[in-house]
């Protein structure tokens, strides 16, 4: 699987689900409506500047806080296909994988430091590699555990057969 797009960088650690999709919108269950409020807690223009196939690059523990699945739904309905971060909060990670919304890709600190906002990236999941076309560098992705990779390849938990 190869993905290509522009990265939107929010280098902070602990970007929580209340930043990704603020609490007051929790009762909304319409996916398109939710996507208008994606990342509103950190960037009110986010939904407007994202194109289909884009990525987010963020610091440690992305998606911490409440378990709301609204967060990955809002991001994926904006067009985001992968979030790159050194670590993710547990429930956010599960929601991304199991819902088949987007890929939570674990990267190392070097990638976080060296990839800049608006860089064009190509991500190869099979080779576990990120190629940054803007600065010409390559970075590794930590591979998914086998069961999780199978769920991703199935298109989400609902399509997975044990």
């Amino acid at each position, binding site marked *: 699987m190869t993905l290509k797009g522009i990265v939107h960088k929010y280098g902070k650690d602990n970007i*929580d689900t209340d930043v990704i999709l603020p609490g*007051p919108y929790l009762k909304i269950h319409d996916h398109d409506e939710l996507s208008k409020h994606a990342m509103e807690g950190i960037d009110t223009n986010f939904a407007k500047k994202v194109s289909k196939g884009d990525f987010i690059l963020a610091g440690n*523990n992305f998606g*911490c806080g*409440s*378990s709301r699945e609204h967060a990955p739904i809002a991001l994926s309905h904006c067009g985001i296909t992968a979030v790159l971060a050194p670590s993710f909060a547990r*429930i956010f990670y599960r929601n991304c994988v*199991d819902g088949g919304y987007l890929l939570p890709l674990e990267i190392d600190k070097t990638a976080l430091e060296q990839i800049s906002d608006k860089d064009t990236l190509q991500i190869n999941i099979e080779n576990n590699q990120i190629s940054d076309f803007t600065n010409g560098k390559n970075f590794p992705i930590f591979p998914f555990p086998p069961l999780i990779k199978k769920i991703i390849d199935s298109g989400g938990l609902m399509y997975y057969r044990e």
Partner: protein
Amino acid sequence: MNITEKIIARASKRNSVSPGDVVFADVDKLMIHDVSGPGVIKVFEEWSKKGIQLENVWDPDRVWISEDHFVPSADRISAENITKLTRWAEKYGIKKHFKYGLGQYGICHTLSHEEALVLPGEFYVGGDSHTNTTGALGALAVGLGHTDIAYAMMHGRIWLKVPDTILFNLIGSIPEHIMAKDIILKIISDIGTDGANYKAMEFGGNAVSKMSMEERLTLTNMTTEAGAKNGIIEPDSITDDYIRQRTSEPYKPIVGDDDRHYVDEYTYEIDKLEPIVAKPYSPQNAAVARELQGVEINKAYIGSCTGAKLQDLRSAAQILRGKKVKIRTEVLPAAQSIYMKAMKEGLIDIFMQAGAVVGLQHAVPVVAHIWVYWEKMRSASVLPTGISQEGWGTWNPKPTWHRLWLLLRRQSKVK
């Protein structure tokens, strides 16, 4: 194996498991509430568009629902969500539906223990991040998102990664001015809001053995604030007494083996602790109450799954007895049954005599505050890092309330 590993091994029908293993495990109990429930129903709707139908819930008797976050409904969407949830529960034969204004109801996590809906040794999943709370009963209690809950609802199974476990050894006598809230805030301020990411937090030691069930529940409740997958305490006679006062249903308690392993161990001497307050905007931002003498308090809220159990209300009443409040003070017992017990003990009378408003459990104050604080932070361009560990927005009074009372008393805000 420790208790977390042993429960996962039992639920996944294996002789043993080790941290890092990814397994499918059988679920014993499942909870949704009026926010996660409609989200789960939405997942079923999406699935059905793709040809995957929910014919039956795997076991309707093992599923329960609580209306606790948007009741009474303040707007159309919330009201519709409640109706949708009700119709759905009826269709799939889910009888344990705790409805607002219909007998016992309250915060989902409070009901899990007040009604003994979850028993020691069980694997329990809930559609809320504070599902961890129920681990105090000696159960593996894990919060999941909508898709995971929907899958578990359909198949009675879900995948799990066996977590590393950190042991918190709490030792020594517990002084009267120290509550479980002080202990857990101290721990969170030491290890950080991501200090237990992906991990289990187990509490043991002679201070825990002496602790009441309600206090133990405060410890496990706030493991969520440290990022933990679950919080857990081995069941003992206090657990059994608590359960037996509520149900005669049989259960098989599980405790760790003698050669159990922990990835890390911390020891806390409880008699050396001081009362602690979590300052805005993170539970990690703790300070001893003594250092906050000059801070003026504008409002007080005694509520939530952490702070409005019977013992919490008793401690607050002890301070308010015979005094008058000088700032707006709201008291919201966490469940109908707790409200009734507090009334019988005369606690409600004390609060009302003091001038506080006593309401039924509902999330309106919490939700209303979210807007105010969120807007404020946004306009001040303060980036709210790690602040909403509480599950409900950028400000939640939960971590601090009973320490607020100590401050109130010291500042003579309470006459």
